[in-house]
C-alpha cells in the first residue's frame, strides 16, 4: 500500500511538497540541517531521503572526504532523487541505496549522522527501525527525525484537520491526479506517535539525550537523539 503511494507520487513529489506546505518544508529541513552538526569528512545517511533535499545540502557540508548515502525503500523515489541530484551536479560523494529502515545494510558503528525526514511514519515496525539506526551509528553520532506531529493549539488543530482531509486530497487530485495518496498522507499523520511517545521510543531504542523541538506550532517536530 505505502509502496504504491510513493510510486504514484514520486514524479510530482517536490511540487506537491511546496504546494502542500506553502514552501515551509524547506525551513523545516533547514532546521534539521542546522541541528545535524554535520562536518567535513562525516558519513551521513539520509534515510527515506526521497528526492534528496537533505542529501544535496549534506553533500556540500561533508565535502570530498565525506560521504552521503541517500536511502529509500522505494525505487521510484530513489530514481527521482538520483536524477535530480545528478542534474544539480551533485556527484562524487553521494551513494544511492535501496534499503529497509528496519534492517539497515551497514556495519555497526559506521555512520556519523542519520536523518529521516517525513519517513518514519511510513515504517511498519518503528521500534525495530530505531534500533537498527542506533546500531549503525558511531558512538557520538546522532539521529534526527523530522516528522509530522501533534499540535496542542486547538484552533490550529481544527484548521489543520480541515486542510488535511479536505484541501489536501483535492490538491493531490488536481496536481498529481491522485487524491487517495494524499488522503493516506493525512491519515498516516494522525496515526503517527506524538512528540512524547516518539521521544520515549527513541530512548527505549538506546538513544541518549533525546529531545524534540516543535516547528510551526507542533504540526512538525524535530526529534534528536545521540549514541554515546
Amino acid at each position, binding site marked *: 500500500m505505502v509502496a504504491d503511494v510513493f510510486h504514484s507520487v514520486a514524479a510530482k513529489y517536490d511540487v506537491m511538497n511546496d504546494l502542500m506546505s506553502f514552501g*515551509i518544508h*524547506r*525551513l523545516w529541513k*533547514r*532546521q534539521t*540541517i*542546522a*541541528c545535524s*552538526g554535520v*562536518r*567535513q569528512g562525516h558519513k551521513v545517511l539520509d534515510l527515506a531521503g526521497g528526492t534528496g533535499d537533505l542529501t544535496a*545540502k549534506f553533500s*556540500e*557540508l561533508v*565535502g570530498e572526504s565525506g560521504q552521503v548515502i541517500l536511502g529509500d525503500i522505494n525505487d521510484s523515489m530513489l530514481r527521482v532523487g538520483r536524477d535530480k541530484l545528478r542534474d*544539480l*551536479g*551533485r556527484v562524487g560523494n553521494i551513494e544511492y541505496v535501496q534499503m529497509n529502515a528496519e534492517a539497515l545494510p551497514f556495519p555497526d558503528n559506521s555512520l556519523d549522522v542519520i536523518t529521516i525526514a517525513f519517513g518514519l511514519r511510513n515504517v511498519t515496525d518503528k521500534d525495530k527501525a530505531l534500533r537498527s539506526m542506533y546500531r549503525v551509528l558511531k558512538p557520538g553520532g546522532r539521529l534526527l527525525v523530522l516528522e509530522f506531529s501533534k499540535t496542542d493549539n486547538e484552533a490550529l488543530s481544527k484548521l489543520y484537520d480541515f486542510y488535511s482531509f479536505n484541501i489536501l486530497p483535492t490538491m493531490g487530485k488536481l496536481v498529481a491526479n491522485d487524491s487517495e495518496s494524499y488522503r493516506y498522507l493525512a491519515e498516516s499523520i494522525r496515526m503517527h506517535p506524538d512528540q512524547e511517545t516518539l521521544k520515549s521510543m527513541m530512548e527505549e531504542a538506546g538513544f541518549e539525550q533525546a529531545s524534540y523541538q516543535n*516547528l*510551526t506550532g507542533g504540526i512538525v517536530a524535530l526529534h534528536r537523539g545521540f549514541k554515546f
Partner: protein
Amino acid sequence: MWITLLTAVAESALEQLLNKEPALAVQLAATQHKTLAVTLTDLELCCALHYVGEQQGKARCFVYGNYQDQADCHITTTLSTLQELSDPSQLTRLIREEKLDLEGDLQLAQSYSKAFAGLDIDWAEHLSTHLGDAPAQLLVAQCKQAKQRGASHLSILKRTVTQLCQDELNVAVHPLEVRQFKTHTRQLAQQLAALEQRINALSEL
C-alpha cells in the same frame, strides 16, 4: 521559525555576494569547511557561518540560526561590540577589555573580519548588466551623494542633540536639589498642619 527564515535570506544574500565578488571567496579560502559561531548575549541568539567553498563553480555557504554545536571559533559578545569587529585589529583589544569572549581559532575570526572589512563592492559594475553602463553609473553616483548627504545630516543632528542635551544639563535641577526641595516642602507642610491645629484650638476657646 523566523530565525530560520532570516538565516535563509542571509545565506542567499551572502552566496550572491560571494559569487559576484570573487575576491571575497578567495579571501575566505582559508576558512573553508570551518564554522564561526557568534552568540549575541543581548539577543540570546547564536548564529553560525560555515563557508563550504566552491561547488559546481559556485561559492556556497551555510548560515545557521540557533546553532547548538561545537564551532571552530565561537565568539560571545553583544550586538554593539559586534559592529566594532569590522576592524580586525580591534579583536585583541575587545578581548582584553572583556567585551568579547573568544573560544577556538582566533585566526578564523580574523580571516572573516579581514575579508568583510576589505570588501569593496563595485555596484555600478553589477548593476550595469541590468541597467546599462551610464544609468548604472549615474544611479550609483546619486546613491553615494545621498549617502554622503545623509551622513552629513546625521552628524549635524548628532551635534545638535548633544548640544541640546548639554544645555539642558546646565539648567536642569540636580537630583540632590530636588530631594532637598522635597524635604523642605514636607517640613513646611508639617509646620502648616501644626499651625492649623493651633488655630483650630484657639478658635474653639
